């Protein structure tokens, strides 16, 4: 990223020195994890470009949107319906929080032992190093886990936060609550943008976001092939970029990539050596630039074929039916789609177990790796349910708990390699 953006970063109030350090951390990692891959699809060039311009071009687009009176809304969870933000004329940005940044700042307001994702977003905000965060006019939080729920109270000191109450069960009365929360979000976002969510604008937004999800689903389908035409690391990268890129352009680029992958498949070209163990990764989200576990898995000779993650299938596995007649119906359908996400914050969460068994079958997985961020109670505890059901079905499982630090890479590599030896 050139120095041409410095003025923009300065005007956003970034701490330029700290921001420089952050930017310097990215390219070597990206080079090692991504650019070192052999024979990548040509269409990955776009996604490399997006990462290369991560704090440049996209931020400029957001600034142009803001200059013409538009608003930017940040989110941290796949439960927040981006269609509503879009329908009200806003741009929805999934904020990343995938790197240990500003920990000392974050620990001024948060306990030391807390989920690294929460610590990261607080650190990003307090250290003023994320131009996305600094572009946000509002953040939409949720009550999925206790850590985030309470951290949003603190975050609200620094940026306006609208919190949606996400239910913890999936009964009819929970749906009623969730539907009310969706209504409140419409009101909150309309008040921010000054634009109305109309039947037309919502219909359009649903269509566009569905388009993005369908493109991601198309990519996911292609990964069911053996050989898989694309590495899991590239798959994860695209799923991460889905959170903040321009919706229509992203959709187009993912579809272009899929066109290329279909040709590759016809030519019998795979992204891995024949016979590589096929792995599904499940657990907590892997936000940019958290590629640690995916990189260890694939550099140990396996291929990741699917991510049962929020940065993965949970984000795009379902679309919103497009047959809503009026705004109320559309919001009902939207609410149902979102409440169908199988996050570990629900009890019970049998849907996730069913998803995993189905995915293992559909993707012909040789094993599943459960990755949980440290201090994430919902996923770390639910790992037991996952283990129980996978054991019953004879599907090999490796459980990992890790954070954004690199000091456990050696041990993780040994454990992952030993797991691959075991299933190989």
């Amino acid at each position, binding site marked *: 990223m050139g120095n041409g953006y410095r003025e923009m970063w300065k005007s956003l109030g970034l701490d330029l020195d700290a921001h420089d350090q952050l930017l310097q951390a990215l390219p070597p990692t990206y080079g090692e994890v991504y650019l070192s891959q052999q024979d990548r699809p040509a269409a990955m060039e776009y996604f490399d470009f997006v990462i290369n311009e991560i704090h440049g071009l996209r931020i400029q687009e957001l600034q142009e949107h803001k200059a013409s009176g538009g608003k930017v809304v940040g989110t941290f969870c796949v439960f927040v319906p981006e269609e509503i933000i879009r329908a009200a004329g806003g741009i929805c940005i999934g904020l990343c929080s995938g790197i240990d940044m500003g920990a000392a700042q974050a620990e001024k307001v948060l306990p030391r032992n807390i989920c690294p994702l929460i610590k990261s977003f607080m650190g990003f905000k307090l250290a003023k190093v994320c131009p996305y965060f600094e572009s946000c006019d509002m953040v939409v939080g949720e009550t999925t886990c206790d850590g985030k729920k309470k951290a949003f109270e603190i975050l609200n000191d620094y940026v306006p936060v609208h919190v949606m109450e996400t239910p913890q069960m999936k009964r009819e009365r929970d749906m009623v609550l969730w539907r009310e929360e969706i209504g409140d979000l419409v009101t909150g976002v309309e008040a921010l943008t000054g634009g109305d969510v109309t039947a037309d604008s919502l219909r359009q937004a649903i269509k566009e976001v569905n388009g993005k999800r369908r493109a991601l689903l198309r990519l996911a389908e292609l990964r069911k092939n053996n050989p898989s035409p694309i590495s899991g690391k590239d798959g994860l990268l695209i799923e991460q970029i889905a959170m903040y890129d321009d919706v229509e352009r992203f959709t187009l680029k993912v579809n272009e990539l899929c066109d290329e992958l279909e040709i590759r498949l016809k030519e019998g070209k795979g992204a891995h050596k024949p016979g590589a163990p096929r792995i599904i990764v499940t657990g907590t989200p892997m936000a940019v630039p958290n590629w640690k576990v995916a990189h260890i898995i694939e550099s140990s000779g396996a291929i990741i074929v699917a991510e049962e993650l929020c940065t993965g299938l949970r984000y795009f596995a379902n679309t919103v039916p497009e047959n809503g007649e009026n705004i109320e119906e559309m919001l009902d359908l939207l609410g149902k789609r979102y409440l169908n996400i199988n996050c570990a914050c629900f009890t019970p969460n049998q849907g996730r177990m069913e998803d995993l068994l189905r995915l293992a079958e559909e993707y012909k997985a040789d094993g599943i790796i459960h990755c949980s961020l440290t201090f994430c109670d919902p996923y770390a505890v639910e790992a037991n349910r996952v283990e129980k059901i996978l054991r019953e079905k004879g599907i090999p499982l490796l459980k990992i708990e890790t954070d954004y630090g690199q000091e*456990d890479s050696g041990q993780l*590599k*040994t454990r992952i390699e*030993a797991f691959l030896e075991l299933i190989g």
Partner: protein
Amino acid sequence: MLSVGIDIGSRTIGLAVLEEGRLIREELRDTGFTPLETVKEMLLSLPPARITATGYGRHAAGAEFAHGIITEIKAHALGAVHCCPGVKTILDIGGQDTKVILLDHRGSVTDFQMNDKCSAGTGKFLEVMATALGYESLEEFGRESLLGNPGVKISSMCTVFAESEAISLLHSGRPRRDIGLALHLSVAEKAYGMLQRVHHHKPVAFTGGVARNPCVVALLEGLLKEKLIMPQNPQMAGALGAALAGCQSPEPVTST
């Protein structure tokens, strides 16, 4: 063709040489500060052989001269099964790792568990404590602690905190062999907890450098209420396993 196994661990490097499946040489050295150089020295006098590396340094060795790489899990399983046929569980406590490996009736790995990033309860922990209590050697530390009286409790598993706990116990006048016994007990209890977590089956073989410590062995046997199976040279199980893996490998060797 010779098959050489090298286990490049955090504290020691083991080398085992097999000829037609028969162990003809084994050697153990401190890892030192230039592990790969040490390995190369150890290999110097050997004729061309198939080299299989395991341990922390396996990838570095693979990049330079090893023909094959296996993890410590697989290496210890192969090595322990070879030395102690019929074993169902392996407990390996090395310089900075603790592993529990479960085997099926054919000796294949079915599950394993490893400590996370912290090296609490490993050989390194005992080394630090031996120094803190002023013992000349680990052998002396283990031997003396075995004679200690029970009753002292070390509550911290963290090496740094346990060291200050041991020192304040010294200052309170507790005999050092009693403190030593408590420190060994904390290692044994941690390993026992790990064995229980994976639902281990008996018999259990004990490998790695800590298996040479008579105090840990006695305490663990007390907790498990059974005798541990000890390979003759528990620190060589990884290297032996790597050499055995090399024998099984179909690929020919062109040069070292």
